[in-house]
């Protein structure tokens, strides 16, 4: 930097409490105003897409949990739907209902962590304690269905890992009660809080045109007034059977995105209640010998099932030549999986369309020309997960 230069270059991250992981932003400041903001990525690059190419289709699944680790079930769902599309497997109704219920639970999980950390960045420290208090009930639910707190890998190709527990309905209703109570706390603390409003209103504004041109998705897009939700626009996993609203913002600022995410939690609860009310009976896995794993009970007592199980674990199944794309609406936006099969038992290429990565491209537009202290708010309102950005 020469002495005549008027601007100051400031490095933010990769170890910074407000960058939600290991994001690095190079800021060029003119006084307190941001002239240029440049995100630097790759500090959590894990090579997940490349790793997927060397694994059987079944064994790819655990990698998907570890991308967006705040919404593992959404990632599982996206990948499973893509493989099921490639293999043309029909899924039983009960499985679809359970999947929808858990995907919505995952959306709440993701939004709760976002709410806590975003408020923490803006100085409201107690929010994190409240949201993590209520998140524990979701973690207990994950543990009840999948046996693990975070990386459940519960949604499998062709169905679920195991049948839902006996108390599934009662437990989910308890979780709903906890979250409903929690929502009142959060809204009392934040929605009319003058400090929160001052720090978020008019910050990180994106117009509808800008949002579309940056190909944003999820609450980032809806905050700018575009009513687009894949659950409505291109329903998957029988989302068309459920009744819910898609909240839309007006101003495209951080405050609108906050309102949208809180409303989305309410709508998720509505969908979960509908799935519980109309939960159909049936098997927890599709019956497709040779492609879908046979149920564990059969593996223990039936000869054919054991053979299929053994063959699937050691050799997997051969996918046809061809490619599919399946996008789902995760908590952060459109989570898409592109899978190219080449006739072998391993995918030729898996490409992930991560919502956080593409939404992060809006950061320079949201920061440039604004105050330096609003950068933290802008990063927070995008809701990034670095595991998904870098993969």
């Amino acid at each position: 930097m020469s002495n005549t230069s008027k601007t100051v270059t400031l490095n933010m991250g990769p170890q910074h409490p407000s960058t939600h992981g290991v994001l690095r932003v190079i800021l060029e400041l003119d006084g307190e105003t941001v002239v240029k903001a440049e995100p630097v990525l790759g500090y959590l690059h894990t090579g997940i897409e490349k790793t997927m190419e060397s694994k059987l289709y079944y064994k790819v699944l655990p990698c998907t949990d570890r991308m967006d680790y705040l919404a593992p079930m959404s990632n599982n769902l996206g990948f499973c739907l893509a493989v099921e599309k490639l293999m043309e497997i029909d899924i039983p109704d009960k499985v679809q209902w359970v999947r929808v219920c858990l995907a919505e639970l995952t959306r709440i999980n993701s939004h709760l962590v976002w709410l806590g950390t975003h408020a923490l960045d803006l100085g409201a420290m107690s929010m994190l304690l409240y949201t993590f208090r209520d998140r524990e009930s979701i973690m207990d639910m994950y543990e009840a269905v999948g046996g693990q707190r975070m990386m459940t890998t519960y949604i499998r190709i062709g169905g679920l890992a195991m049948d839902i527990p006996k108390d599934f309905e009662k437990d989910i209703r308890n979780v709903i009660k906890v979250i409903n109570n929690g929502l009142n706390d959060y809204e009392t603390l934040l929605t009319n809080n003058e400090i929160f409003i001052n720090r978020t209103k008019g910050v990180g504004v994106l117009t509808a045109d800008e949002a579309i041109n940056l190909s944003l998705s999820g609450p980032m897009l809806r905050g700018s007034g575009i009513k687009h939700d894949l659950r409505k626009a291109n329903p998957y996993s029988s989302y068309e059977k459920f009744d819910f609203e898609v909240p839309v913002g007006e101003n495209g600022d951080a405050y609108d995105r906050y309102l949208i995410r809180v409303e989305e939690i309410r709508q998720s609860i509505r969908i979960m209640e509908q799935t519980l009310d109309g939960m159909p009976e049936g098997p927890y896995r599709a019956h497709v010998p040779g492609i879908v794993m046979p149920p564990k009970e059969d593996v223990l007592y039936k000869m054919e099932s054991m053979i299929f199980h053994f063959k699937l674990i050691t050799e997997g199944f051969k996918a046809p030549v061809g490619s599919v794309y399946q996008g789902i609406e995760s908590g952060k936006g459109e989570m898409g999986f592109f899978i190219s099969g080449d006739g072998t038992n391993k995918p030729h290429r898996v490409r992930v369309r991560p919502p956080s990565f593409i939404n992060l491209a809006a950061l320079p537009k949201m920061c440039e020309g604004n105050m330096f202290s609003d950068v933290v708010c802008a990063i927070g309102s995008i809701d990034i997960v670095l595991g998904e950005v870098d993969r």
Partner: protein
Amino acid sequence: MGIEEKIPDSIILTSLDKMVNWAHKRSMWPLGFGLACCAIEMISTFGPHFDVARFGMEVMRPSPRQADLMIVAGRVSHKMAPVVRTLYEQMPNPKWVISMGACASCGGVFNNYAIVQGVDRIIPVDVYIPGCPPRPEQLLDGILTLFKQVEKESIKDDHPEWGRKLV
């Protein structure tokens, strides 16, 4: 017998090592530094349910210069490795490192070109915690294991010249 009988109850006689270790153990401030999935479980541990404040470490320092303990929570990529090393070097002595989760301990499921196969290749590690990710209880157990190690330490280890003078 001896001086112990003459002094009032409010005075406790102990060795310097014990007192220093007690102080280290009861106010160990971790570095607020998360990498990947394990960081979320680390936040859970610091949250209201598991409440690590019971062990005197609720204060997460955003700056390595004020931290005593580094919890490497998550996978360390080759791009991140120099940063982790720098952060470790910026921490003042005495300092401890917990490697949390399979990825930090040995690379975990990601045995590929991008991930450092174990953070102990770049910094010394005191306690390894298995799991992907470890439960908060496991992290608490790891922290308590570290405390037990701290109890056995001696300030002479950090200052070898003191030992020579005394003996």
